[in-house]
């Protein structure tokens, strides 16, 4: 996902047309205390490129600093202040298989307080060597990965809506909390990512349970209206999001987990971590489906979702079911957050940005239905990634949000929703 994104960024900026060509690229820019230029040298085939000399000079030609890329292919140089800088890489340091796609330098303008990403186009010789990927297939696979991730985070959102009627705008923060909890355990605590993820899921479930027991259940008892509850969830979302920014900061940082090279599967390439992300999502979603179909609590969830009063009068403990839904939703959102952090790095507002795509997925599938959330999210994920075939990469989310509005015009109840729900 990251590689592909970088590839597309370079396609767009440097105008490389060859399929399978790699790029030297960078994380998106973000604010930090001082000005910095930074980037990552990697291509889809060679993986990160280590030991390439990167020289940064001012526009007048005075050298600022000279660094080498680390084993992740990353480099960063602090610059003395805002202004124009020239970044040059030493082409002789590149591995034999990798060549420059264009010039060996780029001129960038650094704004005050910004960390400016620098993109230098690289080619890894896959052009004409027969190992090229078909871009549409590549995007489809990537879209499926992204869609499954959205689905996992969105199942909880949809079930919470189904069982309580609450449109939970704070659900994105559950995603962020999961990703950040795993980041602290993984990077600060030095625990490897898999146990860190499990800890994050426990944290997610706990946060879900706390918000149900501490906030939403008392509010339901008070008879708070649905719109009031919705605005309260927005307040909660703001509170959590900016608390996270204060604690974690505005930076974006990766997990301590090997990047690995992309493996060629003929029509598409996939890094092992993306493959793992797809497999984990599928396994978890199948487990959720089996639970909803087969187990007592799963059936109870669907019953409460379908008709709360009827479920209550059949002897189902509605409050207990809702608590389980919150815990499950929190854990799944946390897992989704970790997977998102794995592909896109961990950021304080990652969950909020995903929330809008979750809404798109859930609305497309039908608000309140668990399977609808799954189908809808998959479609949204694939749509968002595939849309980069025609629209630039940095506006691909806009495509997803546009899809949401189109759905509302054509079929507001969603694919699996029932007409009665939309009132």
């Amino acid at each position, binding site marked *: 996902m990251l590689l592909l994104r970088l590839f597309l960024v370079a396609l767009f900026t440097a105008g490389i047309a060859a399929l399978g060509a790699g790029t030297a690229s960078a994380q998106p820019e973000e604010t930090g205390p001082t000005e910095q230029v930074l980037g990552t040298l990697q291509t889809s085939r060679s993986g990160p490129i280590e030991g390439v000399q990167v020289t940064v000079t001012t526009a007048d030609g005075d050298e600022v600093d000279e660094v080498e890329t680390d084993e992740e292919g990353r480099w960063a140089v602090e610059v003395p202040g805002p202004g124009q800088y020239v970044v040059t890489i030493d082409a002789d340091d590149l591995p034999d298989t990798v060549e420059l796609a264009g010039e060996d330098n780029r001129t960038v303008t650094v704004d005050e307080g910004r960390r400016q990403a620098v993109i230098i186009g690289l080619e890894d010789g896959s052009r004409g060597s027969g190992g090229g990927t078909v871009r549409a297939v590549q995007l489809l696979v990537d879209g499926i990965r992204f869609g499954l991730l959205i689905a996992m985070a969105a199942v909880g959102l949809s079930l919470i809506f189904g069982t309580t009627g609450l449109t939970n705008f704070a659900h994105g923060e559950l995603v962020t909390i999961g990703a950040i909890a795993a980041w602290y355990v993984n990077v600060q605590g030095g625990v490897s990512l898999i146990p860190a993820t499990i800890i994050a899921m426990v944290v997610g479930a706990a946060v879900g349970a706390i918000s149900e027991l501490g906030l939403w259940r008392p509010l339901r008892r008070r008879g708070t209206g*649905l719109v009031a509850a919705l*605005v309260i969830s927005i307040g909660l979302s703001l509170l959590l999001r900016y608390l996270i920014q204060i604690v974690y900061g505005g930076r974006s940082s990766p997990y301590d987990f090997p990047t690995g090279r992309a493996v060629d599967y003929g029509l598409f390439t996939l890094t092992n971590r993306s493959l793992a992300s797809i497999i984990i999502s599928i396994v978890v979603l199948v487990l959720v489906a089996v639970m909803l179909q087969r187990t007592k609590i799963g059936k109870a969830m669907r019953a409460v979702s379908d008709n709360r009063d009827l479920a209550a009068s059949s002897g189902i403990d509605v409050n207990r079911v809702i608590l389980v839904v919150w815990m499950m939703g929190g854990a799944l959102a946390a897992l989704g957050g970790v997977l998102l952090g794995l592909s896109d790095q961990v950021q304080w507002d990652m969950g909020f940005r995903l929330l809008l795509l979750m809404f798109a997925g859930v609305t497309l599938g039908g608000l309140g239905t668990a399977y609808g959330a799954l189908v809808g999210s998959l479609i949204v994920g694939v749509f968002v990634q595939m849309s980069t075939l025609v629209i630039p990469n940095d506006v691909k989310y806009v495509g997803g949000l546009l899809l949401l509005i189109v759905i509302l*015009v054509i079929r507001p109840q969603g694919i699996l929703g029932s007409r009665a729900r939309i009132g």
Partner: protein
Amino acid sequence: MGDLLNALAVAGKSALGFQAIFFALLAVGINVQFGYAGLLNFGQIAFALLGGFGIAISVSQWGLPFWVGVLVGLLAAVVLALLLGLPTLRLRADYLAIATIATAEGLRLLFRSVSATPVTNGTRGLSAFNGDFIGLAPWATNERYRILGTTWSGGELWVALVGWVIVVLSGLLIWALMRSPWGRVLKSIREDEDAVRSLGKNVYVYKMQALVLGGILGALGGMVYAVGTGSAVPDQYQNANTFLAYAALILGGAARVLGPVVGAMILLFILQFADTGLRLLIDNGIIPEGLLSSTDVAQIRFVLVGVGLMLLLIFRPQGIFGDRREVMLDAR
């Protein structure tokens, strides 16, 4: 003591400055939609963005006169309201909420994208479009004036004066409208949509009119903000600002003419006071740097607004002036 007085003065200035006007106009717009008609517009900031960029693009990029820019901004807001309302106003409230918040985020991403750079100048935004307007000021705009312990530039004063005139005029308009039959229909839609429909009123059209009117007010707010800061940058129009305006509205009292205006002033006063106060406490070492650094203070305002919104809706949904019976706040 001197520090405290200074903090109060700074907070007072921000409660009267163009930022308060910005939030007041956003909140007056939301009041029409949410307070009177019961519509959940969570994308009010998108209208402000269109207002601000309407002027900025028209003047800086197309070389049109300032007042044509104002018209462009207002027109863009009307078009957006129609586009948003068309699909969503027949559905339940939360669909409009989701669609509007998605639109606001989408528009911001679009305006800051690389492909939009030829028009909007991407993340850096546009500037130098308010010269014509500032030039209209009857006093010297480059001099500084001392008012209530703070200094204002002549330009700031002029923007604030015109801004408050707009707020007062829009307040009068809302007051008159809500006394009219149109306003009564709007309020009854909020109370019971089906009852209004059974009386032969076209609910859809009324809702659409409320959405458009609120959107125009939001665009005016965005214009005041853009002219006040002298620049239009897409990232100034973050989604969280919509909820600052909601907080202002609910604090003051929804479905009241003065509610959003007073709410915006109080909110800005509280936020600025907390901001200056916290910075002072950090500088003096009363709050240790490890707990909260001065760069974190900017985020505190959103934390405060989040807490404030929750507490208000749980304990006092009618705010300062509102009537509890009028803000039942239930989904339909």
